[in-house]
């Protein structure tokens, strides 16, 4: 076979991964731009690659120097942490109820959970505002928290539910057969195996909360979250520290996830459990206990 044919064959076989590489690069372009911009006195709004001149680490050194920015970031982090905690707990409980139990009103509950995901943020934010106006609630951190938990619940339920559906019930039955009460089974078998789904849901809730702009814009009062701060300064000229902070946030998150993944790999290697396959089904006991 000629070299060209070989090359062409290789291209065809690897077309998909090559495409994936381009696609992922496309996803990361803005992040690269933000990172580049955090290093420069580049004139506002102009994308120049002349990093030689105007390249400065000043903004990284002073990255925590703007008090409003720091406060906004802290507010966002606090809000996201609380919102994640509440919505993950509530959502996980709901998911368990929806998957494991059959009860009157299950369909309606399903519908109620799905509809907020199908509602545009503008509508959610505006309707919440309407209600807060009626009840003369002071807009602020608490109204933001309420709103964030509300739109996170649906996503948590969906994620945990999909994990629950693929769940091997035999393990729980085995625990029950070995004399564990339902609560113990839940604590020692169900919950740990559910954890990846719960963590994924929590991460999603965290990301949604920290990134939220539209709903927060309608319901924040005087409280300034990080996205709201960025919006405010974007109308007048973003201080470069914002770019530096955004890059920092990104890098920290990446490191955190890589760390978690690496830990998981190590743990799995030590427990000799392969991640791609579920634990082998335990054969049913020969005699069914009669109730």
């Amino acid at each position, binding site marked *: 076979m000629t070299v060209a044919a070989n090359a062409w064959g290789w291209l065809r076989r690897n077309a998909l991964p090559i495409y994936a590489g381009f696609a992922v690069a496309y996803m990361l372009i803005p992040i690269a731009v933000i990172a580049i911009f955090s290093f420069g006195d580049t004139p506002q709004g102009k994308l120049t690659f002349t990093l030689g001149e105007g390249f400065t680490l000043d903004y990284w050194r002073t990255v925590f120097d703007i008090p409003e920015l720091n406060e906004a970031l802290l507010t966002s982090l606090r809000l996201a942490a609380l919102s994640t905690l509440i919505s993950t707990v509530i959502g996980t409980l709901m998911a368990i109820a929806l998957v494991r139990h059959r009860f009157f009103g299950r369909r309606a509950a399903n*519908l109620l959970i799905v509809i907020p995901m199908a509602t545009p943020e503008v509508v959610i934010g505006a309707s919440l505002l309407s209600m807060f106006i009626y009840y003369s609630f002071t807009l602020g951190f608490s109204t933001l928290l309420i709103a964030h938990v509300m739109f996170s619940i649906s996503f948590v339920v969906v994620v945990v539910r999909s994990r629950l559906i693929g769940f091997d019930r035999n393990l729980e039955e085995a625990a029950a057969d070995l004399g564990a009460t339902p609560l113990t089974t839940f604590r020692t078998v169900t919950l740990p195996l559910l954890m990846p789904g719960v963590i994924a849901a929590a991460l999603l809730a965290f990301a949604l909360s920290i990134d939220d702009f539209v709903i927060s814009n309608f319901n924040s009062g005087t409280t300034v979250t990080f996205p709201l701060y960025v919006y405010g300064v974007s109308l*007048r000229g973003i201080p470069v520290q914002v770019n530096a902070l955004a890059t920092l946030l990104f890098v920290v998150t990446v490191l955190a996830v890589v760390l978690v993944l690496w830990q998981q790999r190590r743990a799995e290697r030590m427990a000799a459990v392969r991640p791609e396959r579920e634990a082998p089904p335990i054969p049913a006991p020969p005699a069914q206990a009669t109730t």
Partner: protein
Amino acid sequence: MERGGRSTKGVMAVACAVAALVLAMGIAACGDDTVGGGSGGEVTVAKGGPAKGHLTISNWPGYIDPGPKGTVAEFEKDSGVSVDYIEDVNDNNTFFGKMQPQLEQGESGGRSIFVLTDWMAKQMYDLGYLQEIDRADLPTVFENLVPSLENPSFDPGRKFSIPWQSGMTGVWVDTAKAPDIKSVNDVFDPKYKGKVTFLEEMRDSVPLVMKAEGVDPEEATNEDWMKAIDKVGAAADSGQIRAFTGNNYNEELNAGNIVAAIGWSGDASIVSNPNAEWRMPTEGCVLWSDNMVIPVGAPNVGAAFGWMEFVYEPEVAADLTEYITYVSPVDGVKDLVKPALAKDQLVFPSPEFQENCSTQDSPPDVETVSGAWADVVAG
């Protein structure tokens, strides 16, 4: 699944939905019945007091010299008051929309001072959202206030507003790319299609267009306003106008996306395009002031008064002007700033410079005209 079972489930679902709705209405019935309409209460006079404690101010962005040597820090050192300076007024209307629910209830969201443009200050006052100010509480202010601002038409005798800074709306021009733009009419020239922006603020953009057509905005009728709005609307539809901006036209200028922008005179500090300059249109500009007002329910009015007194001291006002390059309402600042700045017509305009300028005014039928303008801006 039998069909009977399916339909029962469907009926049950509907019943649940109805029950939920009834519950919602029940909870809703516990609420207040009126929305909007102003608070309708008596206008209170703000009570002063010693300047101490905590103060929250809402102002426009880029309107203060920041940092440890800035006015806020100096005030904190001088008075012992701790200040929360929030730059969340990006647009009069949006800020009003955000604060209105609370102001309606007699609360200011923790803020003691807002800074609003003339007409919005008046609008809030008419709705009963502001407190009046007793001259006796602000001796320095009224001593140093420039005479031309002592008796504006929207607040004769300055009962509820104290000027923060003044400015002019005209045309920012990229002289390298569009040197011949000297009047607002030039902005409509087709050769600059898609390369010009207008301000979202109706009372900035429309009066300029009216003036360019020879109409005096202070005497304009609803028809005059609508005609000007139509002209802008046609330009927006044809793509002549690239966008309607808030404070952010400077970004477009800096990035080279536009050659001309309707904009404000004092923005030189944020326009980094070396070729861009603010031009007084041949037919004149629009004059406006932003004012400090005290909302209802403002906590710690004493500290608010302390702030106002502080920024009306000529030295403090001079520091402010040197940084933000807008027109100061404080007398005597001209002698205290750098000579180059003192000669700058944009910061210390002479009466001749401003002779063709008009003040911002509202149209006779605000609702209809504003609605028409909003439709044009929203696309």
